[in-house]
């Protein structure tokens, strides 16, 4: 097997990647360092060996399926930005027949944290998602439908701190902005509904309950969805933890303690772990560089950021900053592959390909069109990529974030383009 050639220029502007490191191990190797364990939750990849859900191997999607589901998530984000809030009402009958066009977001390349709900508390593995707001879990008696999950399904009747929210409350009304759907009402109880771009959905009672994030951090009267009709690609998780910017999101509901401040490290591979930490005391690196949050029109609950440029192999791409501001950009923990305006992606791809001509190309993988066969190499050299954000913040992307490996013979540039520069 060949090794990547190295000279001083390459060392400065490229990553040397051991090909064997591109695929996750079959055993869990925890490595995350949360600076303050008290306010931190462990983060694991939903389908990796560090996750309890991993034991259900029969339901692990292929990489091609992950990428197709990721495309559904991106389409649903675009759809959500292009419609008026509350443009559809929640109805359980309708929910089962939702077309894959509307609603919020889900996806399959997601990360899991375990929180406690109820009194006595029950542990629930939830997908954590900065791209949505409402937190929900499947609830007994699953009046209409529950998918298979790893944890026991939450039973409100066995908790002393559970109660439904009234239809006439302001909390019920606030579901419209959090879910994009007007709430329903059943026997005076508020009914929420959230649907996803891949036709997954959850409908149930909007309720309040004690939420336990860490042994020391408990929150009474946390508003959440108690799902009675849940269907879709949730992969054995018990539901979603909404970390968006809406008033019903977890950061907003816990703002009195955490001041809407949280951070995370995602695992660098599916066989490793990361953390999700809340509050200033959660531990933030001294080397952190901040850029200003921006607001996305018709998508106020998303975290908007302003990209000003991209460099590949130390060379700034000759694309106008206005290309990025035309459509805007968000950061999302639930989308797998970064999407760029097509003109920006074309420039990135062209530069990357020029710097990778020594490696044989491989077949495209779903939305990833620039793939290589590394099977004859023990290590490879790939160009470094940096994002530049407003305020002059340069963020170098780790080698793990540049490539997406289906197998050693099919390793792809992990970026994709939107269909239109104005998307």
């Amino acid at each position, binding site marked *: 097997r060949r090794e990547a050639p190295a000279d001083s220029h390459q060392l400065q502007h490229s990553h040397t990647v051991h090909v064997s490191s591109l695929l996750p191990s079959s055993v869990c190797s925890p490595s*995350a360092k949360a600076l303050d364990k008290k306010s931190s939750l462990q983060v694991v990849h939903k389908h990796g060996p560090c996750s309890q859900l991993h034991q259900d191997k029969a339901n692990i999607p292929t990489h091609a399926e992950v990428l197709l589901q990721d495309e559904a998530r991106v389409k649903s984000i675009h759809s959500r930005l292009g419609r008026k809030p509350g443009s559809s009402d929640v109805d359980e009958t309708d929910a089962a027949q939702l077309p894959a066009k509307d609603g919020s977001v889900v996806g399959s390349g997601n990360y899991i944290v375990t929180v406690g709900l109820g009194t006595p508390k029950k542990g629930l593995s939830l997908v954590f998602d*900065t791209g949505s707001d409402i937190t929900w879990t499947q609830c007994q008696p699953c009046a209409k439908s529950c998918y298979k999950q790893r944890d026991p399904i939450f039973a409100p009747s066995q908790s002393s701190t559970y109660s439904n929210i009234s239809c006439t409350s302001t909390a019920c009304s606030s579901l419209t902005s959090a879910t994009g759907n007007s709430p329903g009402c059943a026997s005076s109880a508020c009914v929420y509904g959230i649907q996803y771009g891949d036709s997954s959905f959850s409908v149930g009672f909007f309720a309040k309950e004690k939420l336990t994030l860490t042994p020391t951090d408990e929150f009474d009267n946390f508003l959440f969805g108690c799902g009675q009709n849940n269907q879709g690609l949730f992969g054995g998780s018990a539901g979603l933890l909404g970390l968006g910017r809406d008033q019903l999101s977890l950061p907003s509901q816990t703002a009195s303690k955490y001041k809407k401040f949280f*951070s995370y490290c995602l695992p660098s591979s599916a066989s490793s772990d990361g953390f999700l930490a809340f509050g200033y005391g959660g531990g933030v690196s001294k080397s*952190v560089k901040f850029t200003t949050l921006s607001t996305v029109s018709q998508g106020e609950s998303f975290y908007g950021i302003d990209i000003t440029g991209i460099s590949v192999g130390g060379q700034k791409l000759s694309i106008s900053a206005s290309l990025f501001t035309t459509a805007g950009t968000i950061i999302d923990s639930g*989308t797998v592959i970064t999407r760029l305006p097509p003109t920006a992606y074309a420039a990135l791809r062209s530069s990357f390909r020029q710097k990778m001509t020594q490696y044989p190309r491989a077949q495209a993988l779903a939305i990833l069109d620039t793939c290589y066969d590394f099977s004859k190499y023990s290590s490879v050299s790939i160009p470094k990529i940096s994002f530049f954000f407003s305020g002059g913040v340069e963020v*170098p992307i780790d080698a793990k974030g540049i490539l997406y490996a289906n197998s050693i013979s099919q390793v792809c540039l992990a970026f994709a383009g939107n269909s239109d520069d104005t998307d």
Partner: protein
Amino acid sequence: IGIVGNTQQQTLQVVYDGAGGRIGFATGACS
């Protein structure tokens, strides 16, 4: 709209300061 996905966020500490209206990135902080 463009989206920065989770593949590109690996090994970065991503810091959300909703009250301060800013978002931060730190390299080398995760392991």
